[in-house]
């Protein structure tokens, strides 16, 4: 039998634990006999011995340290840099979540105006789950395309309608979730790109307003900025806010993809004095919004509440929700028909959505994914004959033109994205949004980390990203032989059998 070389970590640890005090003694003797300088090592190893004894015999919260002593720290050290090692060295280009390197690279290239042509075939799994767009045998010229134009509020005939000329909107991220510089960069970039930005449910939109871009004010379940003490709507505050020049529309958030059925969450690490004041909340604990609006307890008063907000603001008013049960949504639509009240748009947030911090179970397990949810919503609206009474917006990982096209085919009129814009601002997907430790300074209030963002350098990237998305969208539309996104239908999609959209093929 030939002895094999192998490393027994437990034996190695035991040897180390024995060696440390022995070395302390040896260095002591060397210090005594040769040079007093050896006692630097004596003291070091003496301290290591004490720490090791503490690990092995005193503390009880970590089994690894109790059994392995100081070498056990190696596990924690390596584990702590595991995400970085995997991302940089070991994970392949298509396996990271939520966005793999291929997807992130596409956004980075768009944001920096670098050509995104790639060669030698797709990285995707072709035959199993990828939805494809069916192109036409007779693509049209790009000159035949109808310029994109979407007017919110036109169905109700209000005076203050709002028109967008590009189908992209920066999705809801609050000041609180984002740091000041990130908010300013997004707002300035949105202004340069000519698209609106959603404020998120972060209370009075201070830095958003500074930059003068068009804003969609989001009213979350806690109604930060427009609330009474008891959590109900303060009409006067809302009216005052809606009167501002920059505020073009108001979105009532019923639920969001990161945590459907739960209110917004701002971890206490991220609550500064200013945020506490803007939201009117205490600093020393997480801010948890209620799971629903105080006014909305059933379908009837929910629809009435939408009407109320429309009347108070005199602006286009939309709602945002993540679909749980399509049947319930249908009940809502029926009630809208009965009261003849429709929001000016509905934002369907896919369960995959989520810049926000949320309990893991909610991020992973609650709510319908965007594509089947969007399709269901569009079908329900069409079935009830009210699809032309409102617009549909879609959000949920729509960072690249491919998925955006799919959303258009499923009935979306415009695209909401948050993470796409974060990536174009330099997000590296470190997954630390809730810890106030964002390494690129986007989701943090730490001035030392925000130092990483130069607003003047980053804002144009938002505009570049929008511009290149628009370019790709036009190319895709032309190849599908459609003159505008309105002409896209479910039939423009090739849906493989393993897709979540596959059941809808038979239904149609």
């Amino acid at each position, binding site marked *: 039998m030939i002895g094999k070389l192998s490393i027994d970590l437990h034996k190695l640890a035991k040897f180390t634990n024995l060696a440390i005090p022995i070395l302390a003694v040896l260095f*002591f003797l060397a210090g005594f006999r040769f040079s007093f300088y050896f006692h630097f090592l004596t003291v070091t190893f003496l*301290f290591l011995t004490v720490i090791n004894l503490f*690990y092995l015999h005193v503390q009880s919260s970590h089994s690894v340290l109790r059994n392995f002593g100081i070498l056990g720290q190696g596990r924690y050290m390596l584990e702590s840099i595991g995400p970085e090692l995997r991302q940089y060295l070991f994970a392949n280009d298509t396996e990271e979540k939520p966005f793999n390197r291929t997807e992130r690279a596409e956004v980075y290239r768009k944001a920096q105006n670098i050509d995104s042509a790639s060669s030698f075939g797709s990285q995707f799994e072709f035959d199993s789950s990828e939805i494809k767009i069916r192109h036409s045998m007779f693509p049209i010229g790009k000159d035949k395309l109808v310029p994109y134009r979407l007017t919110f509020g036109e169905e109700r005939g209000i005076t203050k309608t709002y028109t967008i000329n590009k189908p992209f909107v920066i999705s809801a991220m609050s000041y609180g979730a984002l740091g000041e510089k990130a908010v300013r960069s997004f707002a300035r970039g949105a202004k340069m790109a000519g698209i609106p930005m959603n404020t998120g449910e972060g209370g009075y939109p201070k830095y958003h307003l500074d930059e003068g871009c068009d804003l969609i004010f989001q009213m979350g379940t806690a109604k930060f900025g427009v609330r009474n003490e008891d959590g109900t709507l303060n009409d006067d505050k809302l009216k005052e806010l809606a009167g501002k020049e920059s505020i073009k529309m108001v979105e009532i958030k019923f639920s969001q993809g990161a945590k459907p059925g739960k209110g917004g969450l701002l971890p206490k690490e991220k609550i500064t004095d200013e945020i506490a004041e803007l939201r009117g909340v205490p600093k020393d604990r997480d801010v948890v919004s209620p799971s629903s609006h105080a006014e909305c307890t059933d379908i009837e008063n929910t629809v009435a509440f939408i009407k109320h907000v429309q009347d108070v603001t005199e602006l286009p008013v939309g709602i945002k929700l993540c679909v749980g049960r399509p049947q319930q949504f249908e009940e809502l639509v029926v009630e809208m028909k009965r009261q003849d009240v429709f929001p000016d748009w509905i934002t369907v947030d896919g369960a995959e959505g989520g810049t926000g911090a949320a309990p893991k179970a909610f991020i992973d397990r609650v709510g319908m994914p965007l594509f089947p949810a969007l399709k269901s919503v569009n079908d329900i609206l069409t079935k009830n004959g009210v699809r032309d009474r409102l617009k549909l917006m879609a959000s949920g990982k729509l960072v690249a033109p491919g998925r955006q096209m799919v959303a258009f085919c499923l009935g979306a009129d415009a695209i909401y994205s948050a993470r796409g814009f974060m990536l174009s601002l330099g997000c590296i997907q470190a997954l630390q949004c809730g810890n106030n430790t964002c390494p690129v300074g986007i989701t943090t209030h730490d001035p030392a980390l925000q130092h990483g963002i130069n607003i003047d350098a980053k804002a144009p990237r938002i505009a570049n990203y929008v511009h290149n998305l628009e370019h790709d969208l036009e190319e895709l539309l032309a190849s599908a032989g459609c003159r505008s996104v309105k002409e896209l239908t479910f039939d423009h999609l090739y849906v493989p059998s393993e897709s979540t959209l596959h059941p809808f093929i038979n239904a149609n």
Partner: protein
Amino acid sequence: MKNKAYIFSWIAQLIAVVIMGQTLFFKFTGHPETIVIFEEKLNMPGGQYVIGTLELIACILLLIPNSIAYGALLGAGLMTGAIIGHFTKIGWEGSHLQLGIMAFITLASCISILLIRRKELPFINAALKEKCEQAND
């Protein structure tokens, strides 16, 4: 309770800084007593500058809020070395007894600071946390 502990920590910090700090004057000016200790007894000529510099660093760290625990660690290490010196080479006669006792007092101060601020120390703090963030026991 926490505030009391921090007040106690600051008192200990000041004790350690004052004791270590006043010896720096003798070390850096080459006081005859210092020469005797470092050159004759310990056989480390010029060692007073090495030790003196390290003590100066420890004093500074002990006064900066973010680095107090590190200063205490360095101070405790230096004082342990000093006590080893007294036991093995310097002895306890005359003024050396006084110096040795001061080393003990400083060591005790530094250890108190370390105990109060144990959660600020790297390597130790992980083992002290009741809950660990990634739940990796």
